[in-house]
């Protein structure tokens, strides 16, 4: 079932948690709400679930407006950040809860719970209590508990943040497959961009109660809408340059920037991803920056090289293909010349 959120605004006292947010999740899609803490993503999720009421705007399931429908009438499955399993109930009873309050017959309940436990390979431990389970097991119980009443939408609030890294990676892949199998429209909240890109069909990046960009992981990664998105996606070099006459300058390094033809100078930030920088042994005439190799780390198919420009006190991360790296034969301490193959300029109206 598709979900759309239209022009939602929500305040907590004087704090503007959501500022005129609109969002669309198509039927069967898996959407990630991504953003730093305090950006409003969890509030938005709770509004979709009906656990929180918006000040203005509306929530729709398919074409039904459900804004004023109570949480229990929305048929939404919600997985809480810390799982919120019922501590005094066994795993079986936790999963059965949503069915019992709907007055399913005992036989159907037993069948449904058994099927779900089987799905997550936990049939053997239905009699255990939440406190006897590992983090990963609790997570899976929370998930099947939310799914038991056959919700038309599944909402997950930071579903992996309470788990250690290894379990997290395992469960990510599992959630992806699980979603493909069941096809329930799902929205999950995360502050981890890697997680969002890894799991979701569509990523919505939020900041300070607004949506900065929405798109497929590839779209967002290839065409970040603004400096915030680029910065938030991380692993990017920032060069503070001066714009003038269609050029962006940093010391000796000059890059073309035809969007700014004016003669008066202006400060701007240039964002370059590590794989978009090139290194040379020799100066290629004016458009490169002199630097020294500080550190080299092999990382699978690329070599991560860290260089420093003493002149600007600037540390840059450069990813080189291993073949390229071998050709250059770099050692820590070597002098190199850095130049961008590609760059993005953002004239500041945004500041961190």
């Amino acid at each position: 079932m598709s979900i759309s959120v239209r022009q939602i605004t929500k305040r907590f006292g004087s704090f503007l948690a959501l500022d005129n947010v609109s969002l669309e999740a198509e039927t069967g899609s898996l959407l990630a709400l991504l953003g730093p803490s305090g950006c409003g993503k969890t509030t938005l999720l709770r509004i979709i679930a009906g656990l929180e009421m918006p000040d203005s705007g509306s929530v729709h399931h398919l074409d039904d407006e459900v804004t004023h429908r109570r949480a229990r009438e929305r048929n939404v499955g919600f997985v809480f950040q810390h799982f919120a399993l019922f501590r005094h109930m066994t795993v079986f009873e936790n999963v059965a809860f949503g069915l019992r309050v709907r007055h399913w017959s005992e036989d159907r309940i037993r069948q449904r719970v058994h099927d779900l436990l089987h799905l997550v390979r936990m049939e053997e431990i239905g009699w255990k209590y939440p406190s006897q389970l590992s983090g990963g097991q609790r997570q899976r119980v929370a998930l099947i508990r939310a799914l038991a009443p056959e919700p038309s939408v599944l909402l997950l609030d930071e579903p992996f943040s309470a788990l250690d890294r290894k379990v997290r990676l395992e469960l990510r892949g599992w959630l992806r497959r699980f979603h493909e199998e069941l096809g329930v429209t799902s929205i999950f909240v995360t502050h981890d961009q890697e997680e969002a890109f890894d799991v979701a069909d569509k990523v919505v990046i939020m900041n300070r109660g607004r949506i900065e960009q929405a798109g497929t992981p590839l779209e967002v990664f290839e065409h970040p809408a603004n400096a915030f998105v680029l910065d938030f996606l991380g692993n990017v070099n920032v060069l503070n340059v001066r714009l003038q006459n269609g050029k962006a300058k940093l010391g000796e390094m000059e890059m073309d920037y035809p969007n700014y033809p004016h003669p008066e100078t202006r400060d701007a930030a240039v964002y370059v991803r590590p794989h978009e920088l090139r290194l040379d042994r020799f100066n290629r005439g004016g458009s490169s920056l002199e630097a020294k190799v500080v550190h080299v780390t092999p990382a699978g198919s690329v070599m991560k090289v860290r260089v420093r420009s003493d002149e600007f006190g600037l540390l840059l991360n450069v990813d080189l293909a291993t073949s390229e790296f071998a050709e250059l034969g770099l050692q820590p301490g070597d002098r190199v010349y850095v130049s961008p193959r590609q760059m993005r300029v953002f004239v500041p109206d945004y500041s961190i």
Partner: protein
Amino acid sequence: MSIRRTRQDPWYVRWLLTVLALVVLIVLVVVPLISVFFEALSGGIRAYWANLFEDPDTRHSILLTLAVAPTAVACNLLFGLAAAWCIARFQFPGRTLLITLIDTPFSVSPVVAGLLFVLLFGQQGYLGSWLRDHGIKVLFSPPGLVLATTFVTLPFVARELIPLMEAIGPDEELAAISLGANAWQVFWRVTLPNIRWGLLYGVILCNARAMGEFGAVSVVSGHITGQTDTMPLRVEKAFQEFNLPGSFAVASVLTLLAVGTLLLKVIVEHKARQQMEEAKRLAREAGTE
């Protein structure tokens, strides 16, 4: 820790302290307790029985206490649950004031509390004439006793529940709602099982205090023998009338009830503490991860 202590301190210090503690305990607690029963039974078991159940006034006082105390406890059970739920689950203006107000019965002298009710419901009081016109009797009758007792024992249940419910947090209740439970189902299936031991503990403390309440009840009861005398009032009155065996007989029943409460308290306290620690541990886990 305790093992190391006993090894470090010289034997005479240990003995001295132990003996001192025992002497204090015996003089202040054990001897008076035993003497209550000793005095009560001094005329033999038959006389004891007669003192308790053949004197209609004493019999009435026992029944009255057994009616007033549970009623007050029931009132505070409802109030405590509502107050704790409000305070632990919502932020609202006046929240801190409410917490302070719940505590006032602890700091106000019971006699003053009783006087407040007289001021409010008495013949010359603010509501006195209205009540008289409508034929409702509060002072010098059981409703007044229940009111006074409820007031004095107001904090017990709420104070026990507020920290517990805060430690447990709202997530399980929200989960239940999102799974389709209505408010009633959330309360009976999620909230209540989570707080049951803390609640029971609060009720036991509340009940102990309610049965023994003297000051406030004394002011509002009017001391009408056979009508508004509760057990503590009966003990005093019998004592004033030089009916020592009767006085001690009632006192011994109160004492028995106290000892029974104490035993129950020990059992439930352990469970309540476990529940609280479990809640805190889970909250801590959620906080650190």
